[in-house]
Every structure is written in C-alpha cells, then in structure tokens.
C-alpha cells in the first residue's frame, strides 16, 4: 500500500476545486461568446454596404493617386496584432503570434502594434520593436479604439515609417474552429477590394463568394453612369479609406474577441472533462486503498483473537 489514504483524499479535493474553476470559466466564456458573436453578426450589414460603396468609388476614380493605394518598395513592415489580454484560451494567443513570427523575415524591419497583453509580452520577450500597445480592449472592442489604432498606423504609413501594413487576427469560423489570419490592409489594392470581404463569409462556400463579389461588380457598373459624387470621387476616397480601414480593424477585433471566447470555452471544457477523469481514477484508487486497509484490519483482529485462544 504505497499511498496514504489522506493523500488521495487531499488530491481529490484539489482536483475538484480546479474543476470548479475551469467549469466556471467555461460558463463565463460561453456567455461572453454569445455576446461577441452577436456583435460580429450586427457588424456585417454595415461592412457589406461599405464594401459596395467603396468598390463603386474606386471604379469611378480609376487609377487614383491616393497615397494609401499606391504600392511602393517595401523596406519596413508594420503589423497590427489582435490578441487577448488573458491566457487560458488554448492556442488562441500563440497561433496568432506564431503566424506573425513566421511572416517576419527580418526583425529589424518589423514594427508591431499589439492589442492585448499576451501578444505584447510574447514579442517583447523576443526583442521585437513594439511601437504601440493597446490593453484592456480586446474583450469588448469598440469603434473608437479601432479608430485610434487606424489613425496611428495611417499616420505612420503616410510619413513613410513603413511601406506595408498587415493585420493579424483570428478568424471566427465556428465554435470548434478559429483560424489565425494575416491580411494586408495598406497599401490598398483596388483589385483586392472585393476579396477583403472574405473575413465575413464564414459559412459561405468559395463559389458563392465569387458569385457575390461578381454581383456587386455588375451592380456597380450598371449604376456608375448615373451616380453623382459630392465631393469628387478622389476626395471622397480620401475620406472613405480611413473609414474602411477602421472598420476592417474593428471587424478583426470583433472576430478576435469571439474567437478568444470560443477558444477559451473549448480549452476549459476539455480541462473540466480531464479533471473529471482524474477524479474518477483517484476515487477508484481511494476505494481500493480503503478496502485494503479494512481487509488488513480485519485480518489483524482475527489473528489477534486467534492468538488469545
């Protein structure tokens, strides 16, 4: 009898309290997940309408001289990294960080803006150049935070601090699956304008997506001849681009928030299941040890009684 009965009891108690914590976290995460998903859903009509308007203006203005749409030689790259403030969310934080690390070719040429303390800590420990950090907003993103980040990045891009800007976040595919995703947001590519919609269509098939973007195009062409713009399309575009990018960033934050909660829920669910398994195994062991102890005591008593005869 290697193990003490008290030790086993203590372990069961400890695992049980861990289970209670993980279970509570699971419940909290699923409640938050519901909220985040709603937010993501509510944002969709706005984003779709915006893409439509945007693609019309871009078509109208043709080859624009707008600085945010012109490609230039890439020397430095900025990354906006959407991450969580808290851990215990399975691979949520790490997957995004790994994607960024894989994409960065040269540490010296990368400038990072991190949302959430997890991403910041990860990259700070690895000596990356972090130019902006935003804490405490990853769980409940709002448009004004997105605006702030966008303004910062657009300013940097305009001043030539970097020549490309990437947005890295986690795409909420379903409750069971969240995929880290990297997309270029600056400079904007007029031809790529439609595919940016892909962050939205989680349930739609590839074919449907193509069909839809084609639809928008046809619709836009039809209306092009009569649509008037005030001010001129070029000027309008200048107003529209920050709007568009802000919304893309906001969308990434919303998707990220939903992904974080989903990842945490799954992680906590499996932790709870695991705790249950351990408790079962320990209870079995406990009973065996107790049984063995009783058996031994009985045989001691019996042999004691025998000796007295």
């Amino acid at each position, binding site marked *: 009898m290697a193990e003490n009965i008290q030790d086993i009891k203590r372990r069961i108690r400890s695992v049980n309290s861990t289970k209670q914590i993980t279970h509570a976290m699971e419940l909290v995460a699923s409640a938050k997940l519901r909220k985040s998903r709603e937010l993501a859903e509510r944002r969709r009509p706005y984003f779709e309408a915006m893409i439509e308007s945007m693609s019309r203006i871009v078509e109208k203005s043709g080859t624009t001289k707008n600085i945010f749409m012109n490609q230039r030689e890439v020397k430095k790259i900025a990354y906006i990294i959407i991450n969580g403030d808290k851990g215990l969310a399975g691979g949520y934080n790490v997957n995004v960080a790994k994607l960024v690390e894989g994409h960065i070719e040269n540490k010296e040429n990368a400038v990072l803006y991190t949302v959430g303390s997890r991403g910041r800590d990860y990259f700070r420990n690895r000596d990356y150049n972090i130019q902006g950090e935003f804490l405490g907003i990853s769980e409940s993103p709002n*448009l004004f935070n997105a605006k702030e980040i966008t303004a910062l990045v657009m300013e940097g891009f305009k001043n030539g601090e970097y020549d490309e800007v990437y947005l890295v976040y986690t795409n909420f595919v379903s409750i069971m699956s969240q995929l880290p995703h990297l997309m270029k947001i600056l400079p904007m590519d007029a031809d790529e304008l439609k595919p940016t919609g892909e962050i939205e269509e989680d349930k739609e098939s590839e074919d449907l997506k193509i069909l839809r973007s084609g639809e928008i195009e046809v619709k836009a062409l039809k209306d092009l001849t009569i649509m008037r713009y005030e001010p001129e399309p070029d000027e309008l575009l200048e107003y529209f681009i920050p709007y568009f990018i802000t919304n893309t960033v906001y969308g990434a934050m919303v998707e990220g928030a939903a992904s974080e909660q989903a990842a945490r829920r799954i992680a906590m669910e499996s932790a709870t299941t695991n705790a249950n398994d351990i408790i079962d195994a320990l209870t079995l062991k406990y009973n065996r040890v107790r049984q063995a102890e009783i058996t031994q005591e009985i045989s001691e008593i019996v042999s004691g009684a025998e000796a007295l005869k």
Partner: protein
Amino acid sequence: MAETFRLKIIAPTGVFYDGDVERIVIRGTEGEFAILAEHTPLTTIIAVGTFYMIVGVKNIKSGTLLGGIVTINPRETIILTDAAEWPEDIDLNRAKEAKERAQQRIKDEKFDTARAQAALERSIARISILEK
C-alpha cells in the same frame, strides 16, 4: 400621401433604421439637405449632427448621426454612420458634462485638439436634439 423611399441607417453596431420614409433631412458637410423619393443617385459625406425624418402623416422621428456617408440609389438610400441615436438613448447630463470637458480640452494644449473638437461636436448634436 407623399411618395416614400426605402431608407437604411446602418452603424457598425447594427442596423439602426430600415424602412420607408417620405423625407429625411440630414446635415452634410456643406449644410443641411433633404432627401425625398426619386432623388438623383448621389454619394456624399455627412457631418456630425442631427437628423429628422418624416415617416408618414404626423410621424416624425429625429435623432443624431455622428458622421458618415450617404449613398442614394434608385433602389434605396443607405446611410453609413459611426453611430446613430434616438433621443431616448441620449443621457442629457452626460452630454452636458462631455461638452464642458471638451471645451476645456480644446483650450488645454495637453490634449489632442482635433479629438476634443470632435467630442464637442458630438455633445452639441446630442444636446440640441433633446433641447429642441
């Protein structure tokens, strides 16, 4: 009955209004303008301010629109805005406090003037819709 057109007001936080209206008056960057049915297709920028719309007889609604873009199509009119509010969603005291704070910050060099200016515009729009 006057002719109506389909109006959608969409904010990032959701669809704010979706329905047929007779007329809507909003503030553009060049001043107030009205949209009626059969308006010529137009895309333009709107400023931070108030709007009112005539939905039908004796049915006038008003609220705030905090900047955005309006696209008028033959099919529908879409207003994309940062945020839209009905008067009942607005807290008058909070708006007044925000106004005072913004006014102070505009004078103070420590703060971002453009941001304070934007906050001031928002609070003025909010107050004016309640104290009309």
